[in-house]
């Protein structure tokens, strides 16, 4: 051995790898391993940071442009509901009064506005009466008209109103419209903005929280200040109700059958594979399917929550089935054996023991499926939910068949419009949608905590 020329070197290597070295000295191999671990950690941190940054950026942009939609500019005026103009017959006949269009109300409101300005002592120097009148929203006459139609006996009285200011005035207070942009804008003049400033100081014009954003229906292109999410929220709520009522029992029943009762053969394997595939089908395909089956074939009305609900149910079912099956699978077999061992039938085993344990998972899956459905736009576009709907749908269940909008579609709709005020509305709607989703996810987490049990 000793006369072999390489033996020394070989021995040296052997000693290195088999110890005999101090623990206090870090060898090259360990250093290399530690370095690669440190690199990987850094990579992970960078990835997380990018994700967080993207999220923060997204939220910041939405919040910065959308939060202002929760505040709105209003003008306090008192309007004399002149019987000569509103009820020429004088018999307070609602049918007759309703024939008076918003044009009939416009002069009354303008007069009320002028009186309010006069009373506040703000001077009208350098501004025409027409320009002053234009500061009011085009929605204002409709507001007053609705008030009168609700109670015709008020005709002849003077009533206080909080009417909407025009979109540009609102935009000025929110910083969207400036003196410079007003010079170039046909719809607003700097003089109007200066008057608005003075009126605000005098307390005639004020900016307050915008409840109407949640309750009012959509509005036309020229009056973004009046547009609200009322119909969209109702439509989304109806659809979620339909999705929940249909997909939860169907999905859970299907999963229980497949997981616990179905024989294992090629047919059930095929079904399983297809359910997984279904979850990956693009949502627009479901829209086409809904259009073909529910509207063209079954003859259900367009733009109706019932159709939207059915389409979203089809979309949600695979999610619920997959989540339910996963949580059924995660119930330890020992529980099933225990139940069978004391003589419970298959059915009793499933419903007394397995299902309660799987419940948190099922609920979480359902809520996540619902949240997914809530944010879904594409299929709804195809079944006509993108229509402009100003009428509130009726209460359930008839309301399911009335035309309605949906939250994500409303967002899509508003982003299509020209007036920059709708960008603010769309961002506001996104915030509302996000809040709903966050609430639903929190509900899922809470339910999970509540029902979770150790076994």
């Amino acid at each position, binding site marked *: 051995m000793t006369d072999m020329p390489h033996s020394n070197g070989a021995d040296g290597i052997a000693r290195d790898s088999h110890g005999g070295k101090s623990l206090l000295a870090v060898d090259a191999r360990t250093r290399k391993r530690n370095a690669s671990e440190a690199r990987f950690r850094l990579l992970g941190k960078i990835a997380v940071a990018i994700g967080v940054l993207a999220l923060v950026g997204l939220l910041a942009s939405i919040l910065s442009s959308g939060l202002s939609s929760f505040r709105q500019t209003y003008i306090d005026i008192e309007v004399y509901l002149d019987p000569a103009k509103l009820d020429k017959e004088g018999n307070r006949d609602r049918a007759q009064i309703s024939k008076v269009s918003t044009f009939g109300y416009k002069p009354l409101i303008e007069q009320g506005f002028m009186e309010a300005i006069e009373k506040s002592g703000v001077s009208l120097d350098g501004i025409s009466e027409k320009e002053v009148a234009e500061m009011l929203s085009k929605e204002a006459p409709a507001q007053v008209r609705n008030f009168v139609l609700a109670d015709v006996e008020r005709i002849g009285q003077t009533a206080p109103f909080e009417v909407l200011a025009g979109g540009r005035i609102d935009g000025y207070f929110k910083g969207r419209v400036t003196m410079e942009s007003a010079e170039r804008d046909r719809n607003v003049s700097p003089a109007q903005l200066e008057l608005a400033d003075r009126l605000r100081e005098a307390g005639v014009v004020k900016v307050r929280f915008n409840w109407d954003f949640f309750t009012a229906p959509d509005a036309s292109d020229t009056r973004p200040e009046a547009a609200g999410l009322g119909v969209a929220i109702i439509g989304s709520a109806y659809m979620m109700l339909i999705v929940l009522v249909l997909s939860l029992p169907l999905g859970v029943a299907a999963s229980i059958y497949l997981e616990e009762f179905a024989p294992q053969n090629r047919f059930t394997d095929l079904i399983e594979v297809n359910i997984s595939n279904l979850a990956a089908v693009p949502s627009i395909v479901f829209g086409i399917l809904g259009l073909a089956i529910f509207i063209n074939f079954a003859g259900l009305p367009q733009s109706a929550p019932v159709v939207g609900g059915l389409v979203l149910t089809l979309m949600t079912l695979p999610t619920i089935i997959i989540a339910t099956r996963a949580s059924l699978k995660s119930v330890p077999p020992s529980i099933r054996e225990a*139940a069978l*061992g*004391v*003589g419970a039938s298959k059915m009793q085993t499933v419903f007394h023991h397995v299902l309660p344990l799987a419940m948190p998972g099922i609920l979480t899956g359902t809520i996540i499926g619902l949240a997914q459905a809530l944010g879904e736009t594409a299929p709804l576009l195809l079944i006509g939910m993108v229509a402009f709907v100003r009428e509130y749908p009726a209460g359930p269940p008839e309301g399911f068949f009335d035309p309605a909008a949906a939250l994500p579609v409303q967002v899509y709709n508003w982003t299509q419009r020209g007036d920059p005020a709708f960008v603010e509305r769309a961002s506001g709607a996104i915030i509302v949608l996000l809040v709903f989703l966050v609430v639903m996810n929190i509900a899922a987490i809470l339910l999970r905590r509540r029902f979770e049990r150790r076994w």
Partner: protein
Amino acid sequence: MKDNIEGRKLVDQMDVKFETRDVQVFYGETHAIKDVSVDILDKTVTSFIGPSGCGKSTFLRALNRMNDTIPGCRVEGSLTLDGEDIYDPKVDPVQLRAKVGMVFQKPNPFPKSIYDNIAYGPRIHGLARNKAELDEIVEMSLRRGALWDEVKDRLQEPGTGLSGGQQQRLCIARSVATAPEVLLMDEPCSALDPIATAQVEELIDELKQNFSVVIVTHSMQQAARVSQKTAFFHLGYLVEYGDTDTIFTNPTDPRTESYITGRIG
């Protein structure tokens, strides 16, 4: 003298609880149990021993048709409980399992209260007409499970909060609650510490006064400690069945000898 012999024979026949003849169990193509014939006696602890995969658990599960739940599992041959074929098409396995209770390797109490764990079986089988009767069954079962004194003040607490040994005794009490005639135990102590094991073994010894107990165990010492009859399985065959004393001091078959002396795995 002749009468006496006949009398003894009669008693012997009455004592047989399970009579199995040429039992075969298949899992799909796999022949897991081959020609097993064994008589399991009443009020006796019978232990099944053998290396892993020898079929002892499979055979145990054939005795209350727990194998039915496994797809592709087929049982042939004759298995009779008190003279009735348990694989007769008219037999509902649910009814059979109420008569032949089972305790599993890992303690598996339901994630419910201790009371509900015990009361579940009697409830689904309609063994109690009212709350008082149910209470009585629960108390009796817990006493039989040697657990009453430890849990009587906390019956409404979850069964999963008990220690491992207590959980296993709870599971035994749960099986006892359905008034079975035979108790099958599939390695009931393999997840327990020695103290809990000793408590469960003590319990098994008491249970044999009322039940026929069949226990599958990997611990030969346990089989030797608790059972009166021992069956040694190897590669799906029943190699030797006899008195535990004989099996552990002077087995007939060299394979049994090799296994219990630690010469084959």
